[in-house]
């Protein structure tokens, strides 16, 4: 790297940043990838899974050599009441068609950066970008703790808190309703015991979503993921809801872990880590301006998250790739103005990113308004049904059926599900 000058600087070596940097290097451009952690991934936390399709577009057949934990072959939903639960499982064969993998970020991100370096990306770890360098009103590079770096363009991939996007006015201050706070604990178990508990083969894994129970009074969802020899358990909650409830996230997590339907999965596990991270709410209306003169925003920094389908890393990688393609176009044109870089937004609009964000623009608000239906009413009725259907005693079946039917009618569930059903229908019909 001559005189600390490259064509593009990418700030942040998460999925969005790495995908940008490697795409640029493949096009023969000089690119510097900067990250504040000692090793990429050491400051990161997610659920979580990466998605095979979009990841393979950057790293073809990555599963053959990358440090993945388990291929997801089962999705489960636990609907908890105070003490009981109903559980739904969708299992599929992993043969030949991987869809998602659990990964550990400190291993996975490190591997991604190593691939990027092999393909010609300059990598500066342990480097904290303090601010964007502005020269004559134009972004000219970045100021780090130690030295300055110069470039024609900066791709901002500095994550959910994106201090750089704020510096140049692309983002405003966030409010409580813009963010969910996620906390997670990781428990180590003997590999065989983990596989037996979750009914898994050697390399297959489960992804579990948890509704209700200790999380019933707020817009929150729990999760459980199986790694090689650890189980990740946690939940995400909207900051405004947490504030309303005046409760600590780690206390709620403890309550979740102690629920009779959850506790057996992590019993006798050794706590190896506790972590926290925020996730943007992920609606179209909250997307900032993602391009300006000499800068592009990607990944979490741009708010590209689908909280309904738990997608984030895939949208990060895709946005990184589209930003890099735009940067290649700008470099070849020799023009880094906002009007040239608006190509990025056009690409985003043609991709699933903007389409899906638009589809779910208002979903979180609708769910928040109807949250008790999903976290209390439905889990309770489901458990009541099974309780009624399976209890053998002296009460006649007809009396039981009538009692359950009257419970269903009294609960108003049919009426209360209407807004959700109509909203879902509207999402399908809308062009």
């Amino acid at each position: 790297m001559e005189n600390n000058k490259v064509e593009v600087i990418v700030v942040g070596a998460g999925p969005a940043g790495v995908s940008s940097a490697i795409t640029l290097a493949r096009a023969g451009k000089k690119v510097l990838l900067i990250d504040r952690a000692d090793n990429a991934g050491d400051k990161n936390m997610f659920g979580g899974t990466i998605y095979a399709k979009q990841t393979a577009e950057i790293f073809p057949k990555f599963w053959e050599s990358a440090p993945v934990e388990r291929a997801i072959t089962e999705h489960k939903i636990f609907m908890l009441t105070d003490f009981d639960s109903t559980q739904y499982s969708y299992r599929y064969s992993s043969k030949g068609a991987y869809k998602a993998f659990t990964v550990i970020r400190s291993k996975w991100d490190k591997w991604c950066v190593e691939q990027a370096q092999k393909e010609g990306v300059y990598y500066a770890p342990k480097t904290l970008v303090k601010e964007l360098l502005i020269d004559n009103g134009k972004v000219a590079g970045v100021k780090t703790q130690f030295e300055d770096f110069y470039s024609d363009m900066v791709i901002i991939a500095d994550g959910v808190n994106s201090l750089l996007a704020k510096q140049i006015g692309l983002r405003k201050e966030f409010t409580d309703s813009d963010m969910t706070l996620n906390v997670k604990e990781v428990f180590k178990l003997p590999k065989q015991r983990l596989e037996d508990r979750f009914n898994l083969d050697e390399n297959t894994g489960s992804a579990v979503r948890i509704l209700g129970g200790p999380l019933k009074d707020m817009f929150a969802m729990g999760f459980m993921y199986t790694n090689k020899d650890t189980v990740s358990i946690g939940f995400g909650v909207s900051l405004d809801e947490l504030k309303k409830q005046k409760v600590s996230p780690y206390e709620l997590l403890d309550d979740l872990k102690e629920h009779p339907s959850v506790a057996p999965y992590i019993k006798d596990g050794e706590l190896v880590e506790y972590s926290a991270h925020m996730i943007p709410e992920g609606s179209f209306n909250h997307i900032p301006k993602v391009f300006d003169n000499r800068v592009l925003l990607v990944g979490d920094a741009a708010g590209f998250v689908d909280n309904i389908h738990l997608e984030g890393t895939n949208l990060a990688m895709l946005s990184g790739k589209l930003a890099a393609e735009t940067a290649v176009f700008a470099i070849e044109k020799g023009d880094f103005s906002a009007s040239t870089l608006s190509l990025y937004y056009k690409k985003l609009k043609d991709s699933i990113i903007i389409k899906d964000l638009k589809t779910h623009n208002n979903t979180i608000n609708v769910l928040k308004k109807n949250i008790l239906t999903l976290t209390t009413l439905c889990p309770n009725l489901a458990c009541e049904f099974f309780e009624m259907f399976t209890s053998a005693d002296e009460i006649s079946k007809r009396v039981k059926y009538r009692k359950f039917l009257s419970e269903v009618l009294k609960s108003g569930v049919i009426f209360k599900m209407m807004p959700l059903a109509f909203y879902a229908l509207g999402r399908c019909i809308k062009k």
Partner: protein
Amino acid sequence: MNINDKLAALQFNKSNESHLVVDNDICMRCSEKPCLFICPAQVYNWDEKKCLMNIRYENCLECGACKIACSKKNISWRYPDVEYGVKFKNG
């Protein structure tokens, strides 16, 4: 489980300088103090006698929730300098 037991499972490298700064006069007038319960590492502790916010910045998980949740927008938040702060090995 006590929050300190959870934090004990983590690797931290303590800086001599706090990357989190508040104005105590503003905290004193804040009746809500959501930072006290929202922070997932219980970094903020209000000392009623001294009218002072005790900030255990060395336990910060660098999530950024406190800054957003603060009703008075009174938390100056930045990342710790490189080589300091938390290290996630199972994130």
